């Protein structure tokens, strides 16, 4: 009875829970609703993934309101959607479990129910982007998530959060508008917004100037949303000044969803053959991805604020994800999608650990973390665990990502690219180890606050660290689904 409607429920549940939070107003009730809705979304995403993997064609199609595609809106889920949806919903569930004490510490009581409302809207927007099979619908959900994330960032503790949110608003809006212009041009040429339908109609128009313009507009628009270097400048401040919960949530989900859109548009709508062989999209994105890897990591090394450091590290890691896409083979796309998944786990755990630090000490600068290992041993260990993943140490998920990226580069015979990937990961050692040295070997300042963060925060943080290790050992899920997704996307490509 319910099972066939899971795709719709995935969006509807958090979307309906949001206004309920406003109506009921009580913080505890709002938190309870957000908690239930997030875990429900996680359960639904697991069920959907299982359904997709079991279904014969590997695709679930759901006609919203009973209108047949391409006229009605179609929710269309294949392994790629289901995979990205799973990571978004999983991070959502972990973060909401963590959120209670952290939000109570960082956000004033009268605003808390609104915070949870925005959080639910953001979650439903992100899930909506992943679930829908309609190019315009993607824009709608992208805006729902973006508008609510501007709110989420702006409630950060310092006034700087407001300017950071404003800057994100400007960039986000430009990005979304560019995407919309691109979709509009496609609609003008084909008369359809359904992705599957577009995928049939766009490739025959390959040489058309309007199609080419659409192609370019979408590249810039989505690149901005995904914070691909050099369009990343909104990201560091947004992540640095947002409340801890928001930084963790957005870092692990928002940019990932934008990268998903990128992959979806170019490999499904335009098609692998046109995008890669015809337009050389891989060569367009690769230089920026490589620049992101080096510049992001290099700048991260010099940040006194650890949260900002992680933000720049995210810029670099998005570079790795896009690089996989830029290698433009089935193996490369697998590596990119895989890193999207793994990076969400690693960076999520690091941001959550920082949230624990902020909860106890009220700051996240390197100085404030001196001697932290003695004061908050579990939190520090969790941060190091995530950091080892970012470096790519074996037995963590990050190692698997790196392995696939290097393999993909070598498979194309690009040994120089393999060397660059490995070289850039050395920079990660430097910025992670700065924190390790401060936390383990510098003496704690006199009177520094000590004691672990509350239990739910610690459990949620360690859940992600454990996942980071688990997916470094057992990759049947993470690599298996990524391979299926890439195979489906690259079916017609080289």
């Amino acid at each position, binding site marked *: 009875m319910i099972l066939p409607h899971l795709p719709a429920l995935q969006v509807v549940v958090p979307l309906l829970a949001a206004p309920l939070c406003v109506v009921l107003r009580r913080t505890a009730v709002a938190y309870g609703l957000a908690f239930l809705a997030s875990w429900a979304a996680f359960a639904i995403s697991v069920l959907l993934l299982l359904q997709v993997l079991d279904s014969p064609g590997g695709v679930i199609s759901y006609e919203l309101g009973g209108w047949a595609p391409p006229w009605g809106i179609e929710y269309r889920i294949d392994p790629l959607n289901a995979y990205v949806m799973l990571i978004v919903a999983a991070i959502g569930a972990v973060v909401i479990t963590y959120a209670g004490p952290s939000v109570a510490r960082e956000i004033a009581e009268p605003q808390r129910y609104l915070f949870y409302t925005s959080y639910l809207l953001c979650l439903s927007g992100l899930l909506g982007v992943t679930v829908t099979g309609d190019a315009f619908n993607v824009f709608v959900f992208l805006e729902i998530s973006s508008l609510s994330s501007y709110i989420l960032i702006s409630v950060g503790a310092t006034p700087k959060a407001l300017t950071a949110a404003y800057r994100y608003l400007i960039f986000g809006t430009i990005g979304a508008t560019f995407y919309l212009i691109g979709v509009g041009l496609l609609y003008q040429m084909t008369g359809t917004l359904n992705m599957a339908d577009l995928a049939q109609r766009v490739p025959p128009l390959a040489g058309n100037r309007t199609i080419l313009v659409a192609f370019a507009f979408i590249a810039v628009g989505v690149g901005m949303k995904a914070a691909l270097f050099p369009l990343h400048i909104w990201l560091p401040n947004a992540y640095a000044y947002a409340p801890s919960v928001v930084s963790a949530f957005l870092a692990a989900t928002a940019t990932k969803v934008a990268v998903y859109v990128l992959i979806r548009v170019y490999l499904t709508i335009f098609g692998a053959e046109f995008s890669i062989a015809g337009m050389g999209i891989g060569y367009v994105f690769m230089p920026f991805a490589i620049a992101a890897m080096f510049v992001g990591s290099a700048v991260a090394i010099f940040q006194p604020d650890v949260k900002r450091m992680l933000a720049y590290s995210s810029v670099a890691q998005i570079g790795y994800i896009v690089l996989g896409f830029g290698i433009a083979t089935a193996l490369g796309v697998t590596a990119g999608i895989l890193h999207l998944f793994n990076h969400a786990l690693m960076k999520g755990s690091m941001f959550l650990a920082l949230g624990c630090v902020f909860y106890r000490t009220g700051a996240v600068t390197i100085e404030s973390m001196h001697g932290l290992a003695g004061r908050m041993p579990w939190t520090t260990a969790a941060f190091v665990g995530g950091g080892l993943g970012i470096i790519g140490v*074996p037995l963590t998920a990050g190692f698997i990502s790196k392995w696939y990226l290097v393999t993909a580069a070598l498979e194309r015979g690009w040994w120089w690219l*393999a060397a660059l990937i490995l070289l850039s990961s050395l920079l990660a050692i430097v910025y992670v180890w700065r924190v390790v040295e401060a936390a383990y*070997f510098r003496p704690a300042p006199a009177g520094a606050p000590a004691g672990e963060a509350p239990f739910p925060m610690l459990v949620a943080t360690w859940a992600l660290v454990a996942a980071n290790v688990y997916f*470094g050992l057992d990759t049947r899920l993470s*690599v298996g689904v990524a391979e299926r997704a890439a195979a489906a996307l690259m079916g017609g490509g080289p």
Partner: protein
Amino acid sequence: MNGSCLMAAALAIPLAGTVLILMSDRWPNLREAVTLATAASLFAVVVMLVPEVYGGGRPALRLWEIVPGLEIAFTLEPLGMMFACVSSGLWIVNSIYSFGYMRAKKEIHQTRFYACFAIAIAAAVGVAMSGNMLTLFICYEVLTLSTYPLVVHRGDEESIRSGRVYLGLLLGTSILFLLGAIVWTFTAAGTLDFTPGGILDGRLAGPAIGLMLFLYMYGIGKAALMPVHRWLPAAMVAPTPVSALLHAVAVVKAGVFTVLKVIVYLFGADFLRESGYADWLMYVAAASLLLASCIALTKDDLKARLAYSTVSQLAYVVLGAALLVPSGIIGGAMHIAMHAMGKITLFFCAGAIYVATGKTEVSQMDGIGRTMPVTLTAFLIGSLSVIGLPPFGGAWSKYFLTLASLETGHMVFLAALAISTLLNVAYLMPVVARGFFAGGPPGAGTGAGTAIREAPALCVVPLCVTALGCLALFFYADALYALLLPIAAGGKP
């Protein structure tokens, strides 16, 4: 119990020991008892594996597949058997020495020290038993990370700086070169299993062979081939038991062990020799061997001198492997055991002198043999073994290395070995000479310093044991030779 169970036990025992050590944090005596019991049971398990491997068996343990074609798997062959025996056996002696040293110096963070030590040994045993290059790489990295807290044990500015060099070089080279080489091997050969005769024959040709060998040799930073040796002197900032077992035995030998494994089981010695792209390695190893010995001469700090001596002795092993003939490979492999026994003795002595007198510089050690005769006699024995004089173990490995350079007709390496031996004498003997003979006749001056003042018994007994070990290795080298013979024949049992 069959081989697989024993291998699983050999990995599990030190890890379980780590947990127990952490749990017994508040009771130092219990903690030390746990350490000793763990070391003893590990050694017992490893020794129980010897008959099977000696008889030509290759016990294997497959854990699980990480991604298709890449699994965590362990296979025990003669080379690994020897390395596992050396690491786990010396861990017992070293543990006893640690108790004496750490208590006498009243060191901080002793629980962390013993726990990290146990993880490091587990990783070393893992390296020894690895069945493929991926498993070896994983254990190799665990070894680096678990020894980092030991190197920076004191936690002061100097330790942190040395820790940076240590971690930066070891982790950096392993990610940049070794991981790259491993992925390359996997894409070229489709497997990473250690196979007798190698897996790269026919999969790689031309200068690419030389390049890949370069990536492996400098990616294995633990082998301390110059110029990536800087981490080893830096690691000397650690407490002496760490320098003794990890930076004379487990960590550095894991490096040269990996070099041997890569050359014998990934490339295949015959394939490399016929390709002709491996010649450069001999010259690099010989240069490293001589240069490090020369640098050792200039060091006044005893531990720094021993560290450069280790760099030099590791190059012996690499040279043996690079000669690509059976006698060279056996000589190199034997040198792992022989040098381990000799060098751990020397470090034990250096630590005992430090504990008893607080002296670290060679120039301060005048007359020290009169107050610490046992320690200095052990130092003499260790030195003679490292120099390679009979009747001590070191003689055999140098004999085989010399034989290998004669067989291949490379007289230049014969000269290098001879000069290096003289240099060994020049940098080790002054310690003994000063200790016994310098500083005027006994009883001169105030008369102080003539009474026997050895380090605590827990420090002195282990160094006597390892000194006797050097002697024993000379007489039982034939057993080692028989064990190692199969690998020279391409690793076939």
